[in-house]
C-alpha cells in the first residue's frame, strides 16, 4: 500500500516537473533575464529568516510559483553560503519536498523560484482552524508524508534540521510537502554535523548538548515527534515557557510525552521519535512501518483538501495578509540613474600630463616630432585665434572645453599678488577643504566658482578699500558674464590649466 502510493506519487511528480521544465525553457535560454519581467509578484506568503516569500505568476504562462527574495546587501550571509543552499535545493527532486526551479539575480537581490504551496503551512492550519488542532488520522497522514520526505532526504545524507508544523507545507489539493530548507545541512560522507541550528522547542537533545560526536539525521526524527505533538495538541511541549530555558532543559529532562486522550499507537509512535539516544531512535524508513501511520488510510482522511479550503475561506473572511520585511521595489541601483556615487577624473586630455610624461620618459624621439605635427592639425581644425577666443564664448563651442584648451592665453598669472591677501599654502589647503564639490551637471561657473571665490577673498580682505575694490571687480565680472555668457567658464578653465602647469614651480619656489 505504502509502496504503491509512493511510486505513483513519484510518477506524477516527474510529470509535473517535466511540464514545468518545458514551460520555463524559454526563460532558461535567456540568461540574465530580469525576473521581474518574467514574473508578477503577488502577495507575501511568508517571512523567513532568509528573506520574504511571495506568490508570483509567470507573466506568459500564468504558472504560479513561490519566489523567495533575499536582499544580498542586507543579509549577513556570505554569497558562497547562499549558493551552497541553492545547490542543496537543486539536488532535491521528490514529490514530498517543495521543488526548486531556478535562481535569478536582479538589482542586489536573489530571486529563488520554487514550487508554490497554495495551502499554506500546517502551522497556518493550526492557527486558523477553529479547534486549533488536527485529528489523529489527519496527523498520521501528514507525518507519513513527511517521513517519505525525510527518508528521501536522509538517503542523500542530508538533514533538514528545522522540522516543525510551520515548515510542512500544503498544496492547494491538500498534499504535504517538506519546505524551507534554509538551515538544512549536508553530512559530508562520514562527517557529522556540529552546527547549532533549528528552533528551540523542536530541537533534539543531541544538537543542544553539542556532544563531541555531533549529530546526524536522527535529529530530524526527534523534531518530527515534537511536530506530531504540536499537530495533535496545537503546540509543542513547553510552548508556554521561555525558549532559552526550554533549550537548557531539553537535554536534562525526560523526553516529553503526548498528554491527553489519544490512542496507544499515537503515544507509542511519539515515544519512539523522542528516544533521547539518537542511536536507539528509529530511522525514517523504520518508522514508516509503524501502526500509527495506518490511520492515514482510514476512511475520510485522504488529503487535507477540506482543511486547506476551510482555512483559505477563513483567511479571506478576516482579510489576513502578511507584511513583507523588505519592499520588492526597493532597488539599490536606480533604473535610469548612475550605478556610482562619485565620478572620478580619469581623463588624460583635459588636465593631465600623464600622457606627456610617458612620452617624455620613454619615447623622446616621438615626443619631439609629435607636438609639431599635432599642432598643425589642431590649428587647421580650429580657426579660432587668441583674440577670437573670448568672442567665441557665446557660441555652442562653449561646451567643449578641450577645444578651448588648445588656444588659451594667460600671461598675468601673478596679478593676484596685487590683492591684499595672504596666500600661504596651508590656508590654501584649508579653503580647499571647505569647498563642497558641486554636481557637474548643475555647475554654474560664475555662481559656484567666480562668485564663490570673490566672496571668499572679500572675507579675507582686511581693509575697507580692499573690500571695495574686490566688490567692484566682482560686479564687473558679473556684468561681463551677463553680456558674454560662458566667460566665467573659459576664465576658470584657463586659470585651472595655468595653475596646474605652474604648480610645480610654485611649490618649488615657495620652499626656497
Amino acid at each position, binding site marked *: 500500500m505504502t509502496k504503491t502510493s509512493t511510486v505513483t506519487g513519484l510518477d506524477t511528480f516527474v510529470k509535473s516537473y517535466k511540464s514545468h*521544465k518545458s514551460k520555463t525553457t524559454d526563460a532558461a535560454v535567456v540568461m540574465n533575464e530580469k525576473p521581474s519581467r518574467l514574473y508578477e509578484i503577488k502577495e507575501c506568503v511568508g517571512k523567513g529568516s532568509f528573506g520574504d516569500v511571495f506568490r508570483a505568476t509567470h507573466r506568459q504562462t500564468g504558472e504560479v510559483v513561490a519566489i523567495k527574495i533575499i536582499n*544580498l546587501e542586507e543579509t549577513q550571509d556570505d554569497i558562497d553560503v547562499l549558493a551552497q543552499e541553492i545547490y542543496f535545493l537543486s539536488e532535491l527532486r521528490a514529490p514530498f519536498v517543495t521543488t526548486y526551479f531556478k535562481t535569478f539575480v536582479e538589482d542586489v537581490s536573489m530571486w529563488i523560484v520554487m514550487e508554490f504551496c497554495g495551502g499554506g503551512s500546517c502551522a497556518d492550519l493550526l492557527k486558523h482552524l477553529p479547534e486549533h488542532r488536527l485529528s489523529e488520522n489527519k496527523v498520521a497522514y501528514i507525518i507519513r508524508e513527511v517521513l517519505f520526505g525525510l527518508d528521501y532526504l536522509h538517503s542523500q545524507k542530508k538533514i533538514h534540521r528545522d522540522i516543525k508544523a510551520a515548515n510542512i507545507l500544503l498544496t492547494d489539493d491538500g498534499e504535504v510537502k517538506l519546505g524551507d530548507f534554509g538551515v538544512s545541512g549536508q553530512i559530508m560522507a562520514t562527517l557529522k554535523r556540529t552546527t547549532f541550528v533549528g528552533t528551540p522547542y523542536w530541537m533534539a537533545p543531541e544538537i543542544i548538548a553539542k556532544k563531541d560526536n555531533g549529530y546526524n539525521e536522527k535529529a530530524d526524527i526527534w523534531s518530527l515527534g515534537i511536530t506530531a505533538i504540536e499537530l495533535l495538541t496545537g503546540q509543542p511541549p513547553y510552548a508556554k515557557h521561555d525558549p532559552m530555558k526550554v533549550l537548557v532543559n531539553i537535554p536534562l529532562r525526560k523526553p516529553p510525552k503526548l498528554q491527553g486522550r489519544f490512542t496507544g499507537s499515537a503515544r507509542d509512535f511519539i515515544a519512539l521519535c523522542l528516544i533521547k539516544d539518537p542511536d536507539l531512535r528509529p530511522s525514517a524508513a523504520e518508522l514508516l512501518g509503524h501502526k500509527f501511520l495506518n490511520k492515514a488510510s482510514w476512511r475520510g482522511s485522504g488529503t487535507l483538501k477540506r482543511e486547506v479550503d476551510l482555512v483559505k475561506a477563513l483567511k479571506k473572511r478576516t482579510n489576513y495578509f502578511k507584511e513583507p520585511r523588505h519592499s520588492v521595489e526597493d532597488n539599490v541601483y536606480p533604473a535610469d540613474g548612475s550605478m556610482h556615487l562619485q565620478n572620478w577624473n580619469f581623463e588624460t586630455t583635459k588636465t*593631465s600630463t600623464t600622457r606627456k610624461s610617458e612620452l*617624455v620618459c620613454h619615447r623622446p624621439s616621438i615626443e619631439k616630432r609629435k607636438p609639431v605635427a599635432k599642432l598643425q592639425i589642431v590649428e587647421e581644425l580650429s580657426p579660432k585665434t587668441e583674440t577670437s577666443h573670448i568672442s567665441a564664448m557665446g557660441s555652442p563651442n562653449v561646451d567643449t572645453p578641450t577645444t578651448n584648451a588648445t588656444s*588659451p592665453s594667460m600671461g598675468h598669472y601673478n596679478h593676484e599678488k596685487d590683492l591684499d591677501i595672504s596666500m600661504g599654502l596651508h590656508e590654501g589647503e584649508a579653503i580647499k577643504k571647505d569647498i563642497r564639490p558641486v554636481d557637474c551637471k548643475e555647475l554654474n561657473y560664475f555662481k559656484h566658482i567666480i562668485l564663490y571665490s570673490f566672496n571668499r577673498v572679500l572675507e579675507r580682505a582686511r581693509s575697507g578699500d580692499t573690500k571695495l575694490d574686490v566688490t567692484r571687480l566682482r560686479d564687473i565680472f558679473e556684468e561681463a558674464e551677463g553680456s558674454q555668457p560662458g566667460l566665467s567658464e573659459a576664465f576658470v578653465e584657463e586659470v585651472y590649466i595655468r595653475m596646474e602647469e*605652474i604648480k610645480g614651480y610654485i611649490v618649488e619656489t615657495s620652499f626656497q
Partner: protein
Amino acid sequence: MAFWWKKTPKTASDYARLLSEQLNKFDNASASDSRRKVQDECSKYLSGIKHFLLGDVEPEPSCESVDELYDAIYQLDILHDLLAKMPELEFEPRKDVALIFATCLRRSRDNKFVTVDYLVTKPQTLSLMLRTPELALTKPNASDLFLKSGSIILECLKYEQLCRMMLRDPQLWVFFDLARGGSFEVSTESLQILTSFFTVHHKLVSTEFFSHQANLQKLIDKINKLMAHGNYVTKRQSVKLLHSLIMIRSYNQFLTTYINSPENLKLIMILLSDRSKNLQMGSFNIFKVFVANPRKSKPVSDIMVKNRDKLLHYLASFNADSKDTTFLDEKEYVVQEIESLPRLVSPNSDLTLGTSPQNRSTIE
C-alpha cells in the same frame, strides 16, 4: 538499495565491469527504449557501487572486496567513462557519480592518495573533467549537470598534484567566461572553481603559474572583466577573489603587477563608488593596498593626485557609521596618505614658466 548485493551474488569487481559495459552501450543506444534500459542498468550499478564504497551495506564489505572494487574502477577507466556519459545519466545517478568521485579521491593507503596518483597518470581524464561543465551547458538540465561536474573538479582541486595538471590546461580560462555569462548556479560555481584554482595551493601557483608573466596578465585581465561587467553577484564574488589573491603573501608578483597599473586603480575606484555597500567595502580593501604602496608607479599616483580632493570628499562620508575599528583605522590611514599627496601637482609638468601651454595640450 542494499539488497542488490544480497540478491545478486557477484563479486565487487563484477559491478565495475557491468557498469563499464553499460556505460559503453550508450553510444549505440539511440532508440529511447534501449537508452532507457541502459540508463536503468547504470543507475542500478552506480547506486550499488556508491553504497559499497561508503560501507553502508549489510554485511559491511571486507577490505579486500573494497580494494578489489577500486582496482577494477581504475583498470576499466570507469572514472573517465562516467565523465563522458554523465549527460546521459538521470538525475539521481548523476549525484551518485559525484559522490563516487569524492569517495574515490579521499581513498588513502600507506599515506598516499591512491586515486589521486592514478588520475595523475590519466591526463585525458582530467582534460575531459575540465571540459564537462562547459559541454553540460548544451544539454537539457544544464544547470544540474554543470553543478555536478563542477563539484567533481572542486574535489580534485583539493589535491595539489591534480591542481598542477589542471592549471596547465588552457580550459581553465573558460571558467571566467562562464562566471560572467551563466545562470546563478553556473556563475557562482565557476567562481568557486577559479577560487580553488588560485587560492588553495599557494606555492604551486606562485612558482609555477605566476612565474609566467603572460599568465599573470591574463588572470588580471580576466578578473577585471568580471568586476567591471559581471552582474551584482559576479562582481562581489570576483572582488572577493581578487582580494584573496592580493592578500596571499607568496603572491608578491601578482600584487606588484596589480597595484602598479593605472587601469586597475581606475576600476577599483569605480567600484569604490558603487552604490552597493558591499562592493564599496570589498573594493576599499583593495584600494587601500594601492594607497599603502610606498613605491607607486607614476601613472597610479597621477590618478590619485588628480582625484585627491574628490577622494578626500568621498572618503569623508564613506561608511562613516561603521563600528569596525580595523576599518576605521585603515580608513584614517588611507585619508592621511591621500591628504599628503600634492594638490593638483603633476611632478612632470612643464616648469618653464611662460612657455605656451599649447605644446602640452596638443599632444593628445
